[in-house]
């Protein structure tokens, strides 16, 4: 059990007490594992990630992180709060939410400064992150001047600078061009290879196999209906179709048009 970072048992949550978002979720997430949560829009993926990030808390059920119960009251303890924020970094779905400072550099440095990280460590992490994500020329720009892909990279950088053990990413490739998507996938693989636990929510099945050791499938009734290895999950067309994760795709072979479920398991 020592290698389990997050443990969720029968977790339920609703917005305003009347819009259910999680309806009895059970998950274990292991250290240095690549975990992906897939599901259609509104199935509860973002809510789950916010819960893992210690931003919202279950109405019923239990969430344990690093062996301790994750409760709102625990964050009143400054040392617990600081320790947790240093160990868990969350990249939000909408980068505009995450980039609130006047310049990219201030945004990237916001986390380490709040967490009172050592200045020399901040400088080293800044140099490494800027180099990894190739965002050196963006540092003095204002976030509103960036493209979606650039914003996404800066949002990742803003979390990466904290050097968390656990990297949580909400739809990291949504709306990105293929090359930027590729860069982000490569980055996630590298981060995991360096020992980080990577938890990603997506409904982009293209990227699931590469970024996952374990996949959890959310159903429309906001429960996890299946967990398993990515190759098993992606092959289960009935499961994917019944959870709005595949569509019927029509295309041409010469003069002939034919239709089949679009699963992205292999190129066709």
């Amino acid at each position: 059990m020592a290698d389990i970072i997050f443990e969720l048992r029968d977790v339920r949550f609703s917005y305003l007490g009347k819009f259910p978002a999680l309806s009895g979720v059970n998950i274990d997430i292991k250290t240095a594992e690549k975990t992906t949560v897939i599901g259609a829009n509104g199935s509860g993926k973002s809510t789950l990630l916010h819960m893992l990030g210690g931003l919202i808390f279950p109405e019923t059920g239990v969430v344990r992180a690093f062996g301790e119960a994750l409760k709102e009251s625990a964050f009143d303890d400054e040392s617990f709060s600081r320790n947790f924020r240093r160990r868990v970094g969350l990249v939000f779905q909408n980068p505009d939410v995450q980039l609130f400072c006047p310049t990219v550099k201030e945004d990237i440095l916001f986390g380490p400064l709040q967490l009172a990280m050592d200045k020399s460590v901040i400088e080293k992490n800044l140099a490494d992150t800027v180099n990894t994500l190739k965002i050196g020329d963006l540092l003095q720009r204002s976030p509103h001047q960036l493209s979606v892909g650039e914003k996404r990279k800066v949002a990742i950088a803003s979390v990466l600078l904290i050097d968390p053990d656990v990297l949580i990413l909400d739809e990291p490739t949504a709306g990105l061009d293929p090359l930027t998507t590729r860069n982000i996938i490569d980055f996630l693989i590298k981060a995991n290879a360096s020992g980080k636990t990577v938890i990603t929510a997506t409904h982009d099945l293209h990227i699931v196999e590469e970024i996952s050791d374990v996949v959890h499938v959310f159903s429309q009734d906001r429960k996890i209906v299946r967990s398993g290895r990515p190759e098993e999950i992606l092959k289960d067309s009935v499961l994917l179709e019944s959870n709005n994760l595949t569509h019927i795709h029509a295309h041409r072979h010469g003069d002939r048009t034919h239709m089949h479920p679009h699963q992205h398991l292999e190129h066709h």
Partner: protein
Amino acid sequence: MGRNKGFIEHSAMDALSFMKDSLLADEYALKKGFLQSLDARVKAATFIFIILQVILARKMVVLLPLYAFSLVLAGISNIRLGFFIKRTWIFMPLFSLFIALPALFSFFTPGDPLVAFGVAGLKLTVTRQGASTVALFVTRVVTCVSYVVLLSITTRHFELLKVLRIFKIPQVFVMTLGISYRYIYLFIGIIENTYLAIKSRVGTRVRYKKGQHIVAWNIGSLWQRSYKLNDDVYKAMLSRGYSGEPVILEEFRIRPRDWLWLFGITVISVLLFILRR
């Protein structure tokens, strides 16, 4: 929209365009020039000092060199003089001239007649003292405006925000201002797109009453979005360790050039003090 058209749409679009233009005026701040190379704190403090001198000046012989100095500073800071003069003379100085105009005449400022003329049977006399008062007032306004404009266009907005801290304004207010500035863009974008979306669905002819409804709906919708955004941004801050008192990077560095500038301003101030006596 519709025949009245335009009023709401044009007003909204013009306001948005004005905000974008003024907020995007980082163009000059990014150029290489003298004022751009100074430390923002030193620049702001010395400009406030100069503006105080302008306010205290009671002689044209003090004001005119100060105004000429602002033009020289604009020149060596790579600011087009045409743009600078237009920016500084429009509105504030012209408005102050309009206010000060009655002081030209003998019934407000008695003194030595300079010019006399009649309007609709009324004899008006411009006095030497009146002309001098108006000239002094307008020159003072335009000089103050020139330094304020110089400071604002040669300093990036985020540096100006940091400068607020030298006046001991709490960090949380400075940060709130910065965040407001940041999200104005997002909301301008949302408003523009909303108008385009309305236009694409209802065309350009909308009755006045309907137009009012659309605007009211728009305001409500924007409020809801800003409320949601506020919640999300707060979560994003929390997730990166924010605990109520923001800590931000201190990057200002005073260089030899800044000390030279301080020395120059001190010399100028001493000279002005002598001229003022």
